[in-house]
């Protein structure tokens, strides 16, 4: 592409929020491709069952999730087919005084892989593009869940459980700063044991085109049964929000500050995990 100063871009200075499309009440699918119907069905059946009976989720600090305005939720991530995102979403639905929809950022991989592509977007997955996060947080004032570790966390082996990986390049902090929304860190215990990965099969990964091909307690030897989680006890702790709007003008330009905030959040989640795992007597009963 030409790198020279392009055509003067259309005016972007005035607030474009007023020009967001109106909600069309006849539709059950949002502009992001999220289907109320499918999501409601999954929520009422699978998520409810997992949340109440299988993982028996215990939630602390739900009041740290704001009831209005945009907010970025940041959590640790684990499991070959990670159940943590749906449980965080369900926790907000169940425990919060004002239940709100949560948008989960997912790898671009899911948009390109058949069937995943259809379902992930319908149950609230949004590709983790900075522009998408910006639009959701700033323009639409929504809740967005981000896993800064990304696939590095879900592919890690059982022996490395509860050791946080690198928090990306701090892009999530930058996005929250630009939108001027708080960051709510979340520590999740249980997901590591629900579907632990013992090894990876490189050849099958390449053949199937998946992001990784794991060996879990039930996969691949039991086929589709491999999607069954082990009934680990889940604990979710929502931590005190980090206020990005009080960090001065254009804090995102200060890369040092961005890295500092990102490192800080990572350390807080790690400390909390150590504390929670330390108190836990049994993986299955908490």
């Amino acid at each position: 592409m030409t790198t020279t100063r392009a055509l003067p871009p259309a005016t972007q200075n005035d607030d474009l929020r007023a020009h967001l499309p109106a909600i069309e009440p006849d539709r059950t699918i949002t502009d992001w491709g999220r289907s109320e119907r499918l999501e409601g069905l999954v929520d009422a059946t699978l998520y409810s069952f997992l949340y109440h009976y299988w993982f028996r989720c215990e939630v602390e600090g739900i009041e740290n999730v704001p009831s209005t305005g945009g907010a970025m939720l940041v959590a640790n991530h684990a499991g070959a087919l990670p159940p943590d995102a749906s449980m965080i979403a369900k926790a907000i639905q169940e425990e919060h005084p004002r239940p709100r929809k949560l948008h989960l950022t997912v790898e671009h991989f899911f948009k390109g892989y058949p069937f995943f592509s259809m379902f992930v977007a319908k149950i609230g997955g949004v590709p983790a593009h900075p522009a998408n996060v910006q639009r959701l947080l700033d323009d639409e004032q929504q809740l967005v869940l981000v896993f800064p570790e990304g696939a590095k966390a879900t592919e890690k082996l059982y022996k490395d459980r509860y050791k946080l990986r690198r928090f990306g390049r701090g892009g999530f902090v930058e996005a929250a700063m630009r939108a001027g929304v708080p960051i709510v860190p979340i520590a999740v215990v249980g997901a590591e044991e629900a579907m632990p990965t013992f090894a990876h099969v490189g050849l099958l990964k390449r053949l199937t085109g998946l992001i990784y091909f794991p060996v879990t307690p039930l996969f691949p030897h039991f086929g589709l049964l491999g999607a069954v989680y082990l009934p680990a006890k889940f604990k979710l702790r929502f931590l005190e929000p980090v206020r990005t709007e009080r960090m001065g003008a254009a804090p995102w330009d200060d890369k040092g500050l961005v890295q500092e905030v990102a490192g800080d959040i990572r350390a807080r989640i790690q400390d909390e995990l150590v504390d929670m795992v330390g108190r836990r007597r049994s993986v299955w009963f908490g």
Partner: protein
Amino acid sequence: MGRRVLITGLSTYWGGRLAQALEREESVDVIVGVSPDDPTCELTRTEYVRVGTQHALLARIVQAAAIDTVIDTRLVVDSIAAPPRAAHENNVIGTMNIVAACGGPDSPVRKFVFKSSAHFYGCERDDPAFFTERMRRPHPPRTPIEEDIVEAERAVRAFDERNRDVAVTVLRFANGLGPDISTSHTALLSLPVVPAILGFDPRYQFIHEDDIVGVLAHVAVNDLPGVYNAAGDGVLVLSEVASLLGKPLAPLLPPWGTGVAAAALRRAGVRIPPEMLQQLRYGRALDNRALKAAGYAFRATSRETVQAFAEHLRTRKLRATPGAGYQYEREVEEFLRWSPAVRGDDRLGLGRLTRDQLAELARALDSLEARPARLAPRGTASGSTLRTGSPSSSGGAADAELAAEP
């Protein structure tokens, strides 16, 4: 003084519709349309010159008619509309020639509007969910038509940089839909089932054909330099489109080896061009807020566009009237525009003058004592129109000009 507009691609659907829309605009004085083929719709005051994209000829037309606004509607953005070589010739070489004809130190052109397409952004796995005007293409073009569009826009950008006193507008349109246009998408959605790629339900956004014309006319009349996305509000998914049309979604294409399957479908008469395959897989949506902020109000959302199209599909057999198409006849058009019999009394354009001006003119003529009979000012003074005789006008130019009288 009103605008003097040149429309390229007058014979295309968009050129013709835009000319019709501008004919209704009082702020537009002159409309000149150029294209290598005859116009395909009825026009009253648009002047038509049959010329290709030779820049020397275009430059002469622009100079002679003192054109201040050029609207280029000629870009081919659908690879079933023209064979690749012809499309390239038109899109890349044609754009180069047209901007060459509009540039230069003594050019009267002050505004250049370029109709482009959302294919500029392409369609890939790691695209943002909504493209804004500031975003650049994340990947190099994949299909010939995208390559053409990117290259044409590059020529327009270069023109913009070299001619800072010309306001350049680039409009990137989403997939158009409507009863009168025919694109690869209208063909696809007219099939008894809506073909899809197995395992994908892409996001789709449409713009109604009337909105495409509306946006072009809006930009022609208002000065809005810069790039603007044009797409109806709301983003549908393909399964939603199918259900609005009342048709089943048929995953005819496999997720792997899609190109081969598309080639097989082509043999069966279903043409799915490569740029559309990308859209059927990944989908695409535009952020249209900048254009809304610039004062354009869309008449239809994406959903309403599809609903209107569904209605058209249900009734098209009932409404089909054979042989009703418009046929351009040069002699007839020239007679209607230039014959004194049609133009009648108003050859001097007196219909545009105000009553006071006419009265003053009459007084001036009185004092000269040279009063040609057909300019008799008696009727004028009493307030009736200047058209005293009854010109055997069969509509057309004379009526349009007289209608402009306050």
